[in-house]
Each structure stands twice: as C-alpha cells, then as structure tokens.
C-alpha cells in the first residue's frame, strides 16, 4: 500500500522542471494555489487543466505514474463530486431518477470542484516529484530567511528538517526489520480485536524509540565532534542559483493568471 503511494516521493530527472530553482518552484506552487480560485467557468477551467497538463509534460513525469500513484486522492475527489451532485439543487433538472434529481448547477459545481482538486494535487505532486526534499528545504530556508528578524529559528528548523529527511529511509528500514523480527517471534499486527492489535504495537514501538534515541545520540556526538555549534558563523555549501528559466516560469504563470482574470465571469 505505502509502496504504491507516489505522493511526497522524488523521481530524479533532468527535465526543464527538474532544473528549476526550488525557490521559483515553491513560489510557483503557492501562487498557483491562489490562482486556481480565479477559474469559475468552463473556459477558465479548461485553460487551467491545459496549463497543468503542460507542466506535467514539461516535467517528463509519466501521467500514468501520477494517476496510478494518486489513487487514494482520486477516491476523495470522486466523493466530493458525488456530494455536490446530491446536495446542489440549483438550475434545471438534468436527470430525474425519482428518488433523486441531478441539477445542472450541481453537476457543474461537482465537475469544477473535482477539477480544482485534481490540478492542485497534480501541481503539488509535480513539485515533490521533481525536487529533492533537501532542495525543498534549501528553498524554504532561503525564502523564510527574512523571518530570522522576528526570531524565527529558520536555520535550526531547516537543519532539523533536512536531518529528518535524511533519516526517513533509515528509520523505515528499521521499522520493517523490527516488525519482521517480532513477527518471527509470533507477534501478529494484523489480526485479532483492536485491544490485541494495540498491544502488538508495543513490541514494535519500544525498540524503535530506543534505536531512534541511540541514533540521535550518536548523531549529536558526531556533529559536535565535527564542530557544529549552531548557525552562528556557519557558511553554506549548498548554493541556489536563480536562472532565466526561473523568471520565465513565473512570468508564464503570471500570464496564465492574467488570462484567467480576463476570461472569468
């Protein structure tokens, strides 16, 4: 199940989108989230969808992976769609099934809302699929840097985030290993009443915590010996480079926003 989830995973590549600076991609996504709300009729939604498909094309991520990997989210989308059809009683009746009527507005709103959902999920997935988590962290750190003035510990937060990211695969492996070791000792995580299942989690969680603490301790020691003592006086090895491509992509987004503004009702 978890293996099939594509959301939040990174697929290395060398496409136009891959090459963009994480800062421009982050700004792009945040701006896009707002811009989506500009669309309110068939034409504007069509433009939005076309633009999203264009971005997917530019990222060279196969649509099949996106759709396949986003199945759980698509289910949620279908649910909101049905909800809209059932609840919205405005406009002409399109279909009368006796026990329920489908109204024009209901259908329209249902389609629009699911479309909005779809493009948002696609665009944010494209961000995480084409940007390594560490680049996202770098981008966020730089973008949030001005907030240091109001005493937000930006450097520490970014370091915490990058270390957590770095240890996710390690801890996943560890969880898998401990789970298997306890299953081999007859512990059963997937059967029986809830009470038993909760009890079965203890043999998994205790060793996991013990090992995570041990790792944290080791890591802190290693960092200290390697001269880490806070953000003060540190230089940065990871440098971000803003390119003409980045400006271009934001200008393009602005153009799409302007078009949507002009064509909306």
């Amino acid at each position, binding site marked *: 199940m978890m293996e099939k989830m594509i959301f939040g995973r990174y697929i290395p590549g060398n496409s136009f989108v891959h090459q963009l600076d994480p800062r421009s991609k982050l700004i792009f996504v945040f701006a896009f989230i707002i811009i989506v709300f500009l669309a309110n009729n068939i034409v504007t939604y069509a433009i939005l969808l076309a633009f999203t498909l264009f971005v997917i094309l530019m990222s060279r991520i196969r649509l099949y992976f996106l759709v396949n990997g986003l199945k759980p989210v698509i289910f949620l989308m279908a649910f909101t769609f049905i909800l809209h059809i059932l609840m919205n009683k405005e406009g002409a009746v399109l279909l009368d099934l006796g026990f329920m009527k489908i109204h024009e507005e209901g259908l329209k709103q249902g389609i629009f809302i699911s479309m909005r959902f779809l493009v948002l999920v696609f665009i944010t997935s494209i961000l995480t699929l084409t940007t390594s988590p560490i680049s996202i962290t770098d981008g966020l750190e730089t973008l949030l840097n001005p907030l240091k003035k109001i005493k937000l510990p930006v450097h520490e937060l970014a370091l915490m985030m990058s270390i957590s990211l*770095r240890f996710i695969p390690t801890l996943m492996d560890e969880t898998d290993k401990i789970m298997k070791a306890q299953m081999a000792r007859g512990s059963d995580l997937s059967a029986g009443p809830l009470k038993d299942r909760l009890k079965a989690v203890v043999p998994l969680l205790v060793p996991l915590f013990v090992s995570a603490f041990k*790792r944290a301790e080791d890591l802190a020691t*290693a960092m200290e*010996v*390697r*001269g880490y003592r806070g953000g003060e006086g540190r*230089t940065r*090895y990871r440098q971000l480079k803003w390119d003409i491509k980045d400006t271009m992509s934001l200008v393009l987004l602005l153009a799409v926003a302007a078009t949507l503004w002009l064509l909306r009702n």
Partner: protein
Amino acid sequence: MSEILSFNHITFSYTPENAEARKAVQDVSFSVNQGEWIAIVGHNGSGKSTMAKLMCGLLFPEQGEVRIKRDVLTEENLWEIRSQIGMVFQNPDNQFVGATVQDDVAFSLENNGVPYEEMVIRVKEALEQVKMEGFINHEPHHLSGGQKQRVAIAGALAMYPQILILDEATSMLDPQGREEVLKTVQALREKIGLTVLSITHDLEEALLADRVIFMNDGKKYAEGTPAEIFALGDQLVDFGLDLPFATKMTKLLQAQGVQLVGQHMTEEELVNDLWTSNFNK
C-alpha cells in the same frame, strides 16, 4: 619526530561519586607521533571507546591531561582542537549528517566557516582521496557501509586534520567494506603521511599499525610493535582477543612438531619459514 597527541596519567570514571566503582580508564599514558599509525586494541568494555571520547573532549578526565600537539585540551580550546581532529565512528549510518555525499563532506567545513569557493575545492579533493568522487550526489541509503565510512573519512580529511581517529570504524562492516576502508587509510598514510589512531578489536587491523596499545579493564596492559604484542600469544586470547591468522597457524604447526623459527605475523613470512626450515633441505 614531533608528538601530536598524548595521554598523561589519564583516569576517568562514569560514576565519579562512587570511589569503589571500577574506573573506565585508569592511569593510562601514551603518545602518538606525527605520521605514526597507532592501534588501541582490547575486548568490548576494555575502555577503548572511552579513550576516544576523551581525545576529542566529549569527556574530560578525572585526573591527568590530554594534549593535542603541545596544548592541553580544555573547555576553552575545545573547538579549536576539534577542528584538528578527524574522527570516524562505528555506526556508518549514525554519523552521516548531509543529505548527499558532498553535503556530508562539507559539514565540518560549513561549521568552521570556510568560504564557499574553498569548500568546493576541498570537498572534491577529499572525495578523490578516498576514491568516492563518482558518488558526489548519492544519498546515504544508496551507499554500502564501507562507502559511507569512506565518506566519513573524506569529511575528516577536508579539514586537513592533524590526526585521524577511527573508533571501531570497521566493526560493523562486511569483509569487503572493512578491506575498502583499511586500504583507503593505508593509501592516505603513504600519500599524505596522515597520522592514524585506530581503536579496534580486529587484530588483522592492528597488524597494520606501527605500534599497538593493548587495553584490558581500563588499564594499559601492554604497548609495543605488533610483533611484541602478538608474542603475548595466549594472553591475548585470555583477554577476549584473537591472534592474527599467521601467528595462530604458526602455533598450531609447532604443536604438530613442525620446525619454525619464532613467531610470524604475515602469511608470507610463515610460508618462507616453512620452506626454509622444512622443505628446502
């Protein structure tokens, strides 16, 4: 020969309030000279790793002093001294800080405020020295244990350290990984004359050293060249260690009545002795 690191009558206990309790390290003295390879050997719990912690100021001794070059290690000069010591720990996963190989190598440099342009040069150089330049953008979970340890060595080298301390750096590796790491360290010794202090219970690793310090129950039991230490024979085994292959083989052959001249530490020596003393007559 100039002295780089020394322990002068160091005593340390994890429970100083209890005077009766066994000391983790008791009255240990030794020194390391420029360009030497020193191995500290002993079974698990013999005080080896406590000594590593004392060397980089993670712990401070109850009695005695640790000197790096001529300076006594104190709270005041701690950071300055740490920048001169490269240290590689046992667990390859738990010391990899960066998201990728190059980020990890740069970590100490960043901490010490080295400018970006210089970092780029030093990271590249350090990775070439451990032959990991082809893995510059790899993430740690795609590397083998031996590769991660080589990256850790590169991270230390980037700081141009006075001394490289390997704290059981090979004990969690598979045989290939162990060989990779030891070959890397040997090559560095030859190329840049690096001073190495390795803490280990692997006696084949200790054989590579110029001098061996043999720890038992927190005390220095013996110190000498590998030949002198392995001449202790069964005493090593009694203290939870093993003998190098050639030494063990020599003893077994002698027990079979095969004539051999003295102890042997390498297979070549033993093969030659076998030939001259038994076949080539």
